[in-house]
C-alpha cells in the first residue's frame, strides 16, 4: 500500500485519536525544558487529523486527543501536589472564585483541545490536498 492508498483508506477516528493522544503525551514532555512545547500540540493534532478523512472527525480527534493527553498529565500531577486546590486558587485569580473546574476545562479544552483540533484540521486538509486530488468530501 503506497501512501496515497493508505491515505484514501483512512477512516478510523479511533486511530487518529490514539495517534494524537500518544504524540501529544510524548511531545508535551518537552515542556520539562521548553515552555513553548505546548505549541507542538498542533503537530500532535496534525498527525491524528492527517489520518482521518472527515474534517469534523479529524477536529474532534485532535481536540479529544490533546485534551485527554493533558488530562493524563493532570492526573499524574495530582499525585505530586494539590492540583485541584490550585485550580481554585487560579480561578480566584481569574475572578472565578470556587470554579477551579472551569479553569481546568479551559486548560484542557480551550487551550489544549483547540490547539490539537486546529492542528488536526490542518492535517486533514493537507492530507486531502496531497492525496485526494479532485475529490471533495
Amino acid at each position, binding site marked *: 500500500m503506497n501512501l496515497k492508498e493508505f491515505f484514501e483508506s483512512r477512516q478510523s477516528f479511533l486511530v487518529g485519536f490514539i495517534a494524537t493522544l500518544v504524540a501529544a503525551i510524548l511531545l508535551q514532555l518537552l515542556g520539562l525544558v521548553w515552555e513553548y512545547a505546548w505549541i507542538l500540540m*498542533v503537530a500532535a493534532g496534525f498527525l491524528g487529523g492527517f489520518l482521518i478523512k472527515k474534517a469534523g472527525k479529524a477536529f474532534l480527534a485532535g481536540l479529544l486527543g490533546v485534551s485527554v493527553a493533558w488530562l493524563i498529565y493532570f492526573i499524574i500531577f495530582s499525585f505530586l501536589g494539590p492540583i485541584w486546590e490550585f485550580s481554585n486558587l487560579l480561578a480566584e485569580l481569574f475572578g472565578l472564585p470556587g470554579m477551579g473546574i472551569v479553569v481546568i476545562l479551559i486548560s484542557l479544552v480551550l487551550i489544549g483541545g*483547540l490547539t490539537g483540533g486546529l492542528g488536526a484540521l490542518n492535517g486533514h486538509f493537507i492530507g486531502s490536498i496531497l492525496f485526494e486530488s479532485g475529490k471533495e468530501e
Partner: protein
Amino acid sequence: MKGKIIKEIGVCALTVGFIVILSTSFGIIPPLGNFLNPFGVWTVPGNAKYRDMTIIDSRLNGPVNVQFDNYGIPHIHAKTDRDLFFALGYLHAYNRLFEMDIFRRAASGRLSEILGADYINADKYFRILGFNRHAQKGEAYMQANEKYFYDLLVSYSDGVNKFIDSITPWTMPFEYKLLSLKPTRWTPFDTIVFKYLQAWDLSGDLSDLDTTLLQQYLPAKMYAELYPNATMGEPFVPPIIHEFRILENAAPSPLANSIRALEAFEENRPHIFGTPYEGAGSNNWAVNGSKSKTGNPLLAGDPHLGYQQPSLWYEVQMVSDEGYNCTGCTFPAAPVILIGHNDHVAWSLTNIGGDAHVDFYEEKLNKIGTQYYFNGSWRTLNTYTETINVKGGPSDSIIVRETIHGPLITDLVANLTGRGFANLSLKWTSTSPDLKVGGNYSNEFKGLYLMNKATDFTSFNEGLRWFGAMQNVVYADDKGNIAMTVSGPFPIRKQGVNGTADGKLKGNIVQNGTGIGEEWAGFIPFNQLPREINPSRCWVSSSNQLSINGSYPYYIGQNTFDDAYRARRIKALLTSKNDFTLTDFEAMQGDNYDYSASQFLPILISAWNYSINKEHKTYDQTVKDAMNILYGWNYIVDKNYIAPTIYEKWLEKFQANTWDEFTFFGAGSLRKPMITILENLTKFDQYSKWFDMNNTPAIESRNDTMLLSLNQTVAWLQANYGAMANWVWGNHHKIYVKHITGLRALSSPEIPLDGGPNLINNQWGTGGPSWRMVVDLGNSNSEEIYPGGQNGNPMSPHYWDLFYLYINYQYHAVYRTTISTTILEATWVFSP
C-alpha cells in the same frame, strides 16, 4: 481542490492566529498557552513539598547538610562559613526568589522594567536617592578592603545562582509564570543595594518636612509646648502647656510649597514595604536571672512592620565548624540573621525614632540650575542621567542633581521650578560621604556577621559598631548580663539634645544649605552612644520611646511617632513579678491592655457622671448604652468586644476636636501633637483653651469636648456600622497580609484580630508584630513565630502555616540540636 486549498489556508491562518494569541500576554494576563498547559502553571503544586535531594557544586569546600523541620525551617550544617552562605543563598532563592527580585529592583529603581508604568514614581524616587550608585561604590570598596566579607557575599550569590541556573519550566517559581518573567542572576551588588532599601525603610524619616511646616505656622512657644523635643516615655514627665493662640492663614512660602508637593509625592508613590502607619513601632525587653524562674536572663523581641506575603522574614538555623551556630530571622536577599540568638547571646531591635539620620537643606541655585551656592562660592552640581526602562511603554529618564549635601529631592516633582518653590537636598547617613565608619559601605553585613558569631558583650559590640541602622538593641547573654544599647552612626548636630541656647533644635527642620545651616560635625563615637548595662532594676526595655535623658549631650532624633503607652505598659508588667518564664513573655507580646484607655477613660467616666448627676444633662439611649459598655470595660482590646471600637473612635474625635485649630489655616494634614500631650492636657488643665471648639459659640471645657466627642462617636458608629451589635472590634479590625504582587488570591483572608494601636500587641491590620521571639539564655531555649510561612509557593503547606499559629498567639519551638525524625520533613545535601 481549490476549495480545499482555500480551506487549508483559512485553517492555517486561524491556527497561527490562535497560537499567537495564546503566546502573547495582554496587560496582566499571562500568555495563556504558556501558562495553562500542563507544564505551565500546573507544575506549581508539584513543587510545593520539600523532598530529599542532593545538589552538587564543585565550589563547595565540603558537604552541607540541610534538615527541614515540620515548619519548613532549614537547619544548615556546613564545614565553612562560605559553604553555609552558599546553602543559604540556594534556600533563599528556592523559597523566595521573586521577593528577592522585587527587593533588588525596588532598591535600584528598576521595578518599572517588570511591573510597568505604575511604578515609575517609585523608581524615580530611588534613583534620586541613588542606592544604585552608592551600591556600586560599596561593592568596589568591599572588593578592595573587605575581601573576606565580599567573598562571603560571592558565595551567597553563587548559591542563589545555583538555583536560578537550575530552573526549568518545571521548577520556575509561580510568580514568574504568572507575570511571564525570567529571573536574572544574582550578584553581590544586589545584596548591597538591598541593604540601602532596608536601611531607608527603617531610618528614612521625612518628619523634618512637616516639622518645618509646623515651625513656620506655629508661634515658637506654642510649638515647643505641643511638640517637645523628647517624647514622654519612662519616667512619664508631663510637659507644661499654657500657650494658646488662634492660628490664622499664612501665606504659603516657597519652602512650604515644596514640602507640600514632596509630601504629596511621597504619599502617592508605590511603597514596596507598605505605606507607613503612625502607630508602627517595635518592642524589646530583657530581664536578668533574678527576675526569671530559671535563674537565666530572658529576652523578648517583636519588631512591628508592615505585613507582606511572602514575609519579610525567612527563618533559619545556621551552623558551621567555623563558629557559627545562630538561629533567627534573615531577610531574603541578605545572608545574615538580623534578630536571633546563638548559644551565648541573644538580641532584638526596635527603631529609635524619627529624624536621627536624615536632614534636608534648602539650596540656593543659579538661574539655570547648574550651580549651587555654598560657603561663599558657587559650585557645580553633580548630575547623573538615570534612564528607567518601562515594561510595555517608552522608557523614561530623570536627571539627578546633587549638592555637597546630597541629591535635590525636589527634582522628584517636575514642576518645582521658579520662585514659588524651594530646592531641597536630602542628606542621609547611609549615603553621605561624611560617614567614615569602616569606609562608608556595607557595614551592616559585617556587623551582623560578627553579632551572629558573638560569644559575649565585648564581641557582640565588635559587630554592633559596624551596624549602620539606628536601633535600640536589647541584649542578653549566658553569663547573666542584660543590656540596652543603641546602634548606628548618628551625625553630631551642634545644638545637642536640648537645642541651642534659644531652645531650638536644628536637626529636625529644613536647614539653610548655603553653609550657614546646621552642617554635620562628625559622628557620635560608638562608645558614647546611649547604653545601659545590668541596671539595678534588673530589666531593660524599649518601645521606640526616647532612649536618653536630658543629660545626654547629643541630639539623636526627635521621636515623632511613638506615644510611649507600650513602654509604660511593659514597665508595669515587668515590675509586677520576679519569676518570669518564656510563657509569660509570650503572653506579654500578645498583651492587649490599652494603657491609653486606662488613662483617658476614668476622666471621661468622671465627666459623664458629673454631666448626668450634677448638670442633669440628657443623652440618647444609644449614647447611654455606649457609655455603659465603656464603664464596664477592662481595657482589653478583644476582637469580640464593642468597647475598643467606641474608645478608638472616641479618642480620634477627641483629638480632632481638641486640635481643631489646626484646621483653620489649611494645615489639616500637619502632624498633630502626640496623644500623650493630649493626655497631659486632659489630666492637668481641664479649662485649657485648646478644648474650646472654634465652630461653636459656646466655650467648651475638657468635659464638654469629651462628651461632645462621645456624641459624635456614637453618631458616627451608627451611621457607618449600624446597630451596636455590629460595633464589635473584630468586625472592623482584621489582619490582612497582602501578597507582594497585590493579588488577593495569594493574600491572606481578612481575619478578626485582637490588639490595636499603642498596645504591646500593636496590630493595625496590615502590619504589626512581624516577628516574635523569646529566648532563655541559660539553656538556649527559644520560641519564635511570624505571620507568614517559609515557602513562597502558594500551594506549599508552609505558605501560611506560621500565620495560623501566629493569629492564635502560638509559637513554634526552635530546634537547636538534632532534628528528630518525627519532625524531619526533608534533607538536602549539598556536595562538592
